[in-house]
């Protein structure tokens, strides 16, 4: 076990999470946005592991396990949907799906 204080790991996770959020807002390619969501999930995983370490039990790691599984399922379905929407076009720009407006 490392002797580095958990706070540093939390800071790293938080920063990665922030980058992920910013990326979701800034990028226009649907798949790229999806990848930034995955980045956020990864950051959260790091946080849970760090919390497990802070508490001294494995429960945090169990949560990470579940997050991983759900992320996998989510990616699968999400990509299937993206494929369905953007298959005809060569461009996966989310801004083109803007009919639900005022």
């Amino acid at each position, binding site marked *: *076990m*490392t*002797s580095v*204080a*958990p*706070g*540093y*790991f939390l*800071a*790293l996770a*938080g*920063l*990665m*999470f*922030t*980058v992920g959020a*910013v*990326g979701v*807002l*800034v990028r*226009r*390619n649907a*798949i*790229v946005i999806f*990848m*930034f969501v*995955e*980045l956020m999930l*990864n950051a959260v995983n*790091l946080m849970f*592991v760090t919390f*497990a*370490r*802070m*508490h*001294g*039990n*494995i429960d945090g*790691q*169990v949560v990470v396990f579940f997050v*991983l*599984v*759900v*992320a996998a*399922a989510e*990616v*699968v*379905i999400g990509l*299937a949907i*993206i*494929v*369905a929407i*953007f298959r*005809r076009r*060569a*461009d996966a*720009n989310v*801004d083109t799906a*803007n*009919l639900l407006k005022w």
Partner: protein
Amino acid sequence: MTVDFAIFAIVFVVALGSSMAMLFAKNAVHVALFLVAAQVALALAFLLQGAFFIAAIQIIVYAGAIMVLFLFVIMLLGVDRRDALVEPLAGQRALAVGLGLLLAAEIVYVAARGVDLVAATGGDRALGAINEDPGNVVALARLLFSRYLLPFEVTGVTLVVAIVGVMVLAKRIGRMGTSVAERTEPREEVPV
């Protein structure tokens, strides 16, 4: 600067650097690869904190399966073209960056308070003890099949549902026909 801290520093740089690079990469494939790099760095971070099984799973599942899937889809759709530089939505970038900085500051602040926490004493040792005695995998398994049995079963169901769902979405009707998903998709000619 201890060895531990040096290792952590490497992890930090790689992970965060890859994340920032993701933001600026124009090509979707590049973004995916940077994400892989970040995930590998995170796996190392897991190892450092005594989550051995999770680290392995991270590499195998996340970096090895999920990201591969991403790359497949990118290649399939051929959407690796560059994003235009101009941002059509006014203020979006400014808002995103501003909020991002704010959030980052807040999280770092919170994290900084946790630097002196107990982990350096009791938590580390307890976790180390668990990893010693039944071992990380065994301890995880024990929890998974006792206290968290129901969520475990539910995740099983979730996976099955995901598989079935994807099969439905992608299934083509007839020899050269369209898939269910395509037929519910709006037609290209709709004016936007």
